[in-house]
């Protein structure tokens, strides 16, 4: 288990938990990032800018600090 910001590019990850203040958790939830979702880091903007992540048809840019609040782990084998 680690923060999404440390996760290698291109490897699917499953969200275990989103930490941080409540409005942030709700916001990410509204955007479709919550416990159980499988996502993938597809890149990073220049100058160590925002991470670009993708999950079920959505592409999202978010800052490293915010990505660190998304705890992820390896995907369970069956999915």
């Amino acid at each position: 288990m680690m923060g999404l910001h440390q996760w290698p590019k291109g490897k699917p990850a499953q969200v275990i938990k989103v930490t941080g203040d409540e409005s942030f958790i709700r916001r990410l939830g509204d955007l479709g990032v919550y416990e159980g979702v499988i996502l993938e880091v597809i890149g990073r903007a220049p100058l160590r800018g925002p991470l670009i992540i993708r999950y079920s048809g959505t592409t999202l840019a978010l800052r490293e600090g915010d990505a660190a609040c998304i705890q992820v782990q390896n995907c369970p084998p069956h999915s």
Partner: protein
Amino acid sequence: MHSGAKLSSALLVGPPNSGKTTLFNWMTNSRYRAVNYPGSSVDCLKGVSHARYGAPVLVVDTPGVYGFEADSPEEEITLKLLRHDEQMGHFDVVVVCVDYTQLERHLSLALKIRQLNWPMVIALTMPDLASAAGVNVPLKKIEELVQVPVVLVNGRTGAGVAELVTTLRSLQRSKDIPVPLTQQQMASLVKSWSAAEPASRLRKDKATTPQERTLRLDQWLLHPLLGGVFFIFLMVGVFTAVFWLADPLMGVVDDSFSALGGWIHTLFGAGLFADFLADGMVASFGSVLVFVPQIYILFFLMGVLEDSGYLARAAAIVDRPLDWLGLSGRSFVPLLSGYACAVPAVMAARTIRSSRERWIATAIIPLLSCSARLPVYALLLGFVFFERPAWMAGLALAVIYLGSFVVSAVAAGVLNRLVAKSGSSRFILELPLYRKPHWSVVIHGAFNRTLSYVRRAGPVIFTLALILWFATNFPRVEGEVSTFEQVKQSYAGQVGQIIEPIFQPMGLDWRVGVGLISAFAAREVFVSALALVFDVTTGGPDASIEGALLEKMQTATLSSGEPLFTLASVAGLVVFFMIALQCTSTTAIVGKETGSWKFALMQLVALNAFAYMLSVSVVQGLSLLGI
């Protein structure tokens, strides 16, 4: 339909970029800006459905929301409407737009809205993209799960819109509110939904879906190195194109207005009336319209980038550098618009999430080199590089642009230090799919934005230019006097001479002072004001106002006999124009958008005072060096 009957009304809601404005345009037969950038609508739009759909329905388009958490003022509006806030008016039905290619996420918002006791219908948008992506969830299945009517609408062709309006009308009659679900029902619905969806996605040749294309393009365009290089080249390209494409067009506008002036002179002969028509009316119109090509081209190119989906990526790319200045990628679009005109830029700042960031962005937007400054720079550089190759003036202009960029960055950085931090700043932005720009939308959108600039700024500029004409021509001086004497003894001349001491440290005299004061109507008025006080008239058919004015500027002297326009005084003027906030429309819109006239006035005073001090130091410094 009798006049007493109340129109039935529908509210269009849904996540950002789900096709609400596009649907609104189809329903009401209008052409508002619907582009591929999440959060492109910052205002509600109101319209009545077109006659081809039968009895009229009032339709209101709203800014997109992701959930019930308002993150910005414009989302707050939508949420208020959804919560049946009676102050916002009464609506019969809510239409929730759901992007067919993003079913899972968009439907979960629809489910939440379903709990709010509305007669409701789901408009399933982007069917063309969904079938290209191989999404194949049957409509019936969705209807079954959510238990509200679902209508498929195609934003490209308008198919399904008629059916949607019919459904709306029957819902309005039946007032059929779906029974709210219990917490458990919601949870099991979401579960059965997640189970159903992946299975129903057809396996398609992966490489051809819009999603895969987007992914592959992003590998390049968001590449840590190449992405940055591409971005820089693209921005340089955009600005070069704006000048390069606009220049001949601006020439055409300028020439035709001076030709019209000359023609009036030949038609009516000499005399006050002809002067009024040619130098008052026509020249003022001309000064409003010269910028139209530039503004249009910048808005057009922005529209292309926006609708292709790149602008959202660009915002992500500049997020890091903007973060150093207390801003974020959200500020990118407002700041870019600031290069055309500060007024739409300040309005676009609504999409900025954090109020602190919105505050900083609004404070620095007037520093960006808007197109109204261009004619002023063109004139001043035309003077400095008189009869020199054109590329030298071009290079100098690039330096000025870069300078204004640096000044605004420094200003943002300083404000970032001064203003207390409020919580952590965030940047979360959905990146839409790349799409082929919708040309008619882009062309029309740029046209509308340009038109609204002309409408807003035009009357002000025009009225002030006319007032200025009267102020320089009255009171009439008796007898045969030179025009110089006439201007000198006019109201404008008298006022100019009283306040001349203010302009002396800038190396200027009362005539340029009159120009600077008039520029508070709008910066570009400076040029026509100078033309008036230096008595440049629209003469022959091929003499442009600009050219004639440049000649006069070469020989103009201060009362001491020294030349008025020197390298030092012109540099001082450039610096002044770079920083000063000489635009009443900007102050008005800042006051309105921030809701704080104190802020708007403080900005006005601070920027002008700073511009004045810096300009004086430049002029004095350069004179000390003997330039």
